[in-house]
């Protein structure tokens, strides 16, 4: 899927000159990715739809200024993440900007949950309840970590592409991805730790 996303067979010339058919192809190809990102960032179908519409309206307006140095998907992700973060800040004014340096940038939270839940059966790991728990854990990440986790792990962007999208250094992307992953591991360990206890109790 990530490979399919990278196949960029659009005519920049046609896009820049306002060719509607070519623009429709662009919308058709990338709207599902933009919508998914919006949904996971904002956890609201209405907000995700707003992000989707605004992204392509802005893209159309600014296509002439797109110089083609970045992949067009990277450029669209940049517009989409800006829209999503702007909407988040409007709703939660205390949201930290992605570009603000972190207070404890070099201090990792030490792992507290040491439970080996890897051995749980697939049915437990992939249950509807487990999936909800995965979603909740992502929702509870600060926006500045969530966006990086989503771009890297769900949208499949490389570290470099993610850095380009967010205008951050690759080192900052790596540090924050590491934090996001460790935080998610903590949350999942709480959930699956309980499931493991129940499971072992039930099979004893």
């Amino acid at each position: 899927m990530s490979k399919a996303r990278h196949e960029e067979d659009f005519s920049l010339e046609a896009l820049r000159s306002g060719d509607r058919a070519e623009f429709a192809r662009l919308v058709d190809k990338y709207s599902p990715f933009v919508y998914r990102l919006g949904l996971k960032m904002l956890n609201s179908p209405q907000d995700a739809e707003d992000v989707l519409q605004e992204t392509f309206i802005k893209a159309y307006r600014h296509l002439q200024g797109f110089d083609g140095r970045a992949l067009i998907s990277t450029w669209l992700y940049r517009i989409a993440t800006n829209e999503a973060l702007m909407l988040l800040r409007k709703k939660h004014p205390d949201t930290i900007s992605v570009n603000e340096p972190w207070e404890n940038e070099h201090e990792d939270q030490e792992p507290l949950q040491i439970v080996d839940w890897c051995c749980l059966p697939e049915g437990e790991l992939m249950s509807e309840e487990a999936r909800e728990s995965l979603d909740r854990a992502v929702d509870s990440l600060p926006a500045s970590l969530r966006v990086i986790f989503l771009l890297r792990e769900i949208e499949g962007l490389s570290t470099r592409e993610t850095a380009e999208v967010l205008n951050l250094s690759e080192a900052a992307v790596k540090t924050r991805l590491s934090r996001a992953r460790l935080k998610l591991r903590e949350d999942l360990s709480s959930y699956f730790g309980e499931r493991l206890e129940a499971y072992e109790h039930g099979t004893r």
Partner: protein
Amino acid sequence: MNMEHGENCRHLLASLSDYVDGDLGDELCQEIERHLDGCDNCRIVIDTLRKTIYLYHVSATPPSVPDDVRQRLYHRLELEAFLRKGGS
């Protein structure tokens, strides 16, 4: 249960994410693997970290746009003429 953090465990923490991605040099990798041989807690952290990432990958919803959302998008962009083509 709390992890009893040794200096080595703390040192490892900063490299964990790169380690599971296979982004570390041989020397650092070997250092970590030597540590893991003797540290069950770190072994569990690494295993559950890998499993966490794996679960997010396999449970990711495929990208799609609901039909009504797609129609409103094409309408807003004045692209209705192209709605039939492609489709999701």
